Structure formats: C-alpha cells, structure tokens
C-alpha cells in the first residue's frame, strides 16, 4: 500500500475543515500496519487495528471511503491506450 495521494488528502480536508494531517496520518498508519499483517497468522492484530481505525474514521471523517472514492474517480486519468506504432508497406503484386 502506498501513501495517500495528496489530491485525496486534500479532498478529505475539504470535506472536514477541522481534520488535521495528524489524524489522516494516524488513519493511514493503522491501515498500513493492518495490510502488512499476515492474514494467516495475525487475525487478532488485524482485528485490533481495524477496530481502532474504524473508531477514528467514525469520529473524525464518517464519509471517509465515499470521499476517497469520488476523489480518486476524479483524478483517475483515463489511461491512454499505448497503441502499438504500426508501419505498413504494401507489396506490389507480381507482374
């Protein structure tokens, strides 16, 4: 999992003017820690981190996922099809 793009961070702060970078960073840190847990052996730790993160989101930015989805949809450039550059040379028919 990579860092939250600044466009998405800005969208969260626009939706919640009192939201601080520290709270966003804490949410991201909990999410990152959760994603680095072994899903096979660390279910308890995953549940603990999810619980803490859920409470933080509910308290500070209840529309967190919705805002991120909308912001990402806006910034997600349509990936241009890197169409292969093709050069065609026709051959003259015999005769």
């Amino acid at each position, binding site marked *: 999992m990579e860092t939250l793009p600044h466009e998405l961070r800005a969208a969260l702060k626009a939706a919640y003017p009192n939201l601080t970078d520290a709270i966003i960073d804490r949410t991201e840190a909990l999410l990152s820690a959760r994603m*680095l847990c072994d899903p096979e052996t660390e279910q308890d730790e995953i549940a603990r981190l999810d619980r803490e993160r859920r409470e933080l989101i509910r308290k500070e930015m209840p529309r967190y996922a919705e805002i991120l989805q909308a912001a990402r949809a806006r910034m997600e450039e349509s*990936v241009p*099809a890197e169409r292969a550059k093709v050069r065609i040379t026709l051959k003259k028919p015999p005769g």
Partner: protein
Amino acid sequence: MATSTGTVQLISWIGDTVVATIAAPPLADRAVFIAFRSVDREPTLHCKAVMANLLVSAFISGYPIEARYNSNWEIEQVTVGAFDISPVGPAIHGDFYSIGGVDIPPDVEIVFDSDTMTVAVDPDMVRPHCVFLTALPSEIPLGRNVVSLRSANWTSNPVPIDVNAGPPQTARTLYSGWPKHRPYTIALAANPGIETIEGDFVIDPVMADRARYHRASVSCVRSLLTMAEDLLRQNDWDRQIRFISIFDATLSANEDNALAQEVADSTIMAPRNHRLEAFLARYDAQADIVFVVFRSDTHNRESATATTDYATSTTGGTAFTYDGVEHVHGYYPRTPGSATMSVTIGNRTMTPFHEFGHAASDYNNGRVRDLYDDNTTSSFAINKKWRAQSSDPIPAIFATYNGVDFPSDPTRDGLGYPPDWVSYHPELITPENPNLMDNYRGGQNSSLLSRLDRLTYAWFTDRLRAKFNR
C-alpha cells in the same frame, strides 16, 4: 555428398518412400527422398523416421532445413537450422506477443513480412533478451508471415509464423525464463471475482476489458524491469524470470475463483492470497509472485501480501544472519507473494514495484515495510527500526547483514524524519530520490527514479539469488 538448404515446399509418401522438394532460390527446387527398406535394421528405420518427422515439421512451420543426400538424391542427414530469436507462443491478433533473443538492441522494431505487405511494429517493452507487445496488431495479415527483429545496426534471422485471428489464449507464457524446473515466476492474473465487504462474490469488471488488462500487465512488467531500480535486471537477471498471464473469462465469481477482496472502511483491494496456489494449478502454473489485476469503482487502492516460504527442512533454503540472528531465504513459496493492481494504473508507474517490495519479502524471515509512517511492530522487518525515544540519535549503523554493516539514513531521503518519529531507515542507494518503500512521490525528481535502500537491495539480491538457483 551434396547439400541442399532451404524450405520444404512439398512432401509426400510414395509407397515406402518419403519425397520432399526443397526450395532454395535462386537454385532450382531439389526433390530428395527417404526410402524405408525391408532390409533396414531397427536403428536405421528409427533414424529415417526421425528425419521424415523433421521434414514434416519443417514443411508445416516453414523453418529452413539442410538436407544432405547421396548421388541418388537419397537423404542421409537432415538438420534444422537454429534461429537467433524465438517467438513465444502463438501469434494471435489482440493477444500478448513476445519474442526472445540475445543482446536485442533497445531501438529494435518487430517486422512481420507476408506476401502482401510488410508490417513493422514498435515493441511496448524491450529488454536484451525479450521484446513485448501488449497486443498483436490486427493490421498483420492472417496466415503465414515471417517475423524478424530489426534495428539500425542489426537484423535477426527471419522466423516463419502463422498469425491467427483468435481468440486470445487463456493462459499464456510471456517469457519462459530459465530452462529449468520451476524458474522464478511472476504471474499476472485477471481477477475473476471480488469478495465484497458483505462477504458476497461479484464478477470483477476487469473480465470485460481484456485490452485494458493487457495494458496494466505490461505496465507491471515495465515497472519491474525498465525503471531506475535495477534489482530484477542487475546482470540481466530478468532472463531467468518466467512471466505468465492468465485471463479466464469463463469463470464465475465464487469462493474458489475470487482472487481479491474489499477491505472494510477503506478503498483498499487486498489479494486473497490463500486462493492463489490452487487457482494457478488449474492452468498447470506455479508462481513466486502474483499480480492480481482488478477493477473497482469503490476499492481501487492497491495492496500486497508477503510470501510465506516453505520451512527450510521441507524444500531447502539459504541461511543468512541479520544482527547476528540466523534466518533463511526459502527456495519455494508455500503461499506466493501477491499484490492487487488496479487496471487503471498508468503506463509508467512505480506502484507495481512498490507492491513487489512487500510481496517478495517473507512473513517469517523478513518483511519489507512501508517507510512513510512511524508504525512499530514486533515482527522481523528488514528495512525499518525504532529508537526508544524520538530524541535519541539515529544510530550510524542500521544493521549488520551477513557480517556487513549497513549505515542508517540520517535524513530520511531528504524528506526528513518528523520530530516525533522513533522509526528510522537504512541508507539509500540514490540519496537524491526518496526510498521506493517510502513516500517516493514526495521528492523533487521523477518518482520513476526512486530506488530501494542499500540494505534491502542487498537482502533482496541474496533472496532472489537463492530462489533463482534453487
């Protein structure tokens, strides 16, 4: 003994005799034969059968042969010539297409020559041992073509191929890797189904957009093999790596087929890593790393799971020490490392390599962690350590790996450690660009220049070497 070298134009059986016509313009066509006689002993008959099979194969493929024959024009030896390039798999309009070779120059183009036209195509990716096309252009005529690679100063041998209209293959080898049992393998898989937060299974929309899956897949390979970070291509190592693709549009979304799951209260899509091995086995495939290519409007953020290697006692491994404690680079994964990759990733991005950094590490013998936060953990991390207090100085030596001291990064990539952080990182290879596992987009230069730190690079190099040489 005379020799005729060229393509087999005609081949037929007349009684116990195989007659072949070999064309080698501008010389006249030469009819030669193999006679199966009742007096021939078993080894002789076997040898003649092999020669006849070679003639038939050469006739079908269009590959040139060299036939040596006696004064009666009876063949005594058949040799199929070697090519200096090797097309990988069938040529199908719209499907991936790749050609292997040696010392392929970076300015190469792929040339398809047919009776009616010559079609030259710029590859989407070039490495010295392989060129990749995201999709074989439909402008190339169906049927027999001769393909070659051509650059300003070099042209490969021409290789006859048959171009088909489709459909594209379900499972395809993009590059075969080292010719050995279980070469290190990276799989790209279109995700058949998504497990939702509610626990339902829904079809992944990526299955309706194969063209975009192809582009995302090549973006992954491009990220791993062509950017500033040379971990996988040092000493042309990537020649050893097998790349495969699976796009199976026939599958329904269910517990067995879903390879990705939504993570609640987030926009993260996570790999269902416990399903990967069985999924790959259906296509007679195994992999060390799997990129699960998906599409979602709600959960479009990538993530990874690390590898879980088999215990050394099961399949072997190479021991290493980290700060005096012994660990192991396992040879084979019990559960492959995996990363989800949104089909909307750009053409040039480091996201696949960042997630590879997590996926290729090992839950039990060293995890490669994100460096953009101050998370602490009790699990064994290769690239992150913690001070007791944020006011404590950062130790000059980060860690001792296999007896070698690796320095710390005192300034965190030039981004600076926040004053309340206790975590710190190893020294970078290129201090002017942020660490690939950190907020690598936060530097002054292009994010494509970001690399790993020296310690993680050395550790991964040994880990990959252990797996390459298994």
